[in-house]
């Protein structure tokens, strides 16, 4: 695939992620903070998000496996996940977190377990998509091109 085709593919892919609600305006803000002096900023922040989210998902799983669930603790983890997903523009993850917090407040175990499953799913989707997008970007850069905005 030539450079122009790669660039076109990237733009299309990225646009679809916004249309499907995987990413929102905040992701654009992140891109705007990246420049020649900080060329890896977006990848770095997103990588931190991946690490942090995996940690939180593990904590959530453990917390919800307990005989006696500490909903305050579960809520605290969800709050963190909601915050970080919002900070990088991972809109679908953020939305599930909002529903998740409501179930925590109601101390609804079923609801929480359902949301945990959903949030894992949404997280895994956005991770795969972002990684694909980063790969495309890398291909373009390696071919000597620049990332279209």
């Amino acid at each position, binding site marked *: 695939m030539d450079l122009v085709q790669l660039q076109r593919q990237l733009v299309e892919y990225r646009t679809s992620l916004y249309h499907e609600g995987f990413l929102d305006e905040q992701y654009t803000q992140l891109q705007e903070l990246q420049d020649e002096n900080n060329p890896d900023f977006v990848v770095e922040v997103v990588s*931190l998000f991946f690490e942090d989210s995996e940690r939180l998902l593990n904590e959530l799983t453990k917390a919800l496996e307990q005989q006696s669930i500490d909903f305050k603790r579960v809520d605290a983890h969800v709050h963190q996940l909601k*915050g970080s997903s919002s*900070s990088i523009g991972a809109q679908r993850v953020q939305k599930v977190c909002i529903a998740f917090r409501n179930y925590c407040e109601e101390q609804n175990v079923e609801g929480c377990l359902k949301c945990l499953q959903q949030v894992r799913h949404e997280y895994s989707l956005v991770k795969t998509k972002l990684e694909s997008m980063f790969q495309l970007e890398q291909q373009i850069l390696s071919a000597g091109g620049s990332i279209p905005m």
Partner: protein
Amino acid sequence: MGMAADSEFHVLAVDDSIIDRKLIERLLKTSSYQVTTVDSGSKALEFLGLHEDLHDRIDQNTPSVSPNNHQWRLQEVEVNLVITDYCMPGMTGYDLLKKIKESSSLKNIPVVIMSSENVPSRISRCLEEGAEEFFLKPVRLSDLNKLRPHMLKTKSKDHCKEQVDEKTAFPSPKQEGKEESNNNKRKATEEGVSPERTRPRPRPRPNGITTMV
């Protein structure tokens, strides 16, 4: 060209989220500020030089050291603004704001609160306690444009008091009142202790602190 570089302004950013710390650091540096990030309110206070329990570490031979409300300034670092997350484990951003405003040496440092939650009562509580601004997360570059006027105010205050600083280099406790004017530029002074100290002066650099230039 022309304008004095904003890198003369140093902002202390406080947030327990590593993602948000990275974000706010980039936002602030893009706005040409010097940035230090810490992950908790207590580390922020340590960085600002506020050790309320330091009297415990001093040996018995140093008299006239009052345990309460005693602010030790161990670091000669000027902080022109503190921007802190509201929701943090342990000390919240509100608690940190209060401690800063209650401190005679730090109260003139402008404080800005950030929060992911839009709670009107929370916002008014913070503003009433002396916060200059309340930003909803995620914070944007445009929000940071509001910071400069607050920092400029304190900067010009400092400049006028430069003369007073030298005369009150080693104040006795009674003169502490006069030191209140040079809030932002703190000296490593120790009240009630003679200059010829035999103990080395500790300069702790706690973990979890990244100072970016």
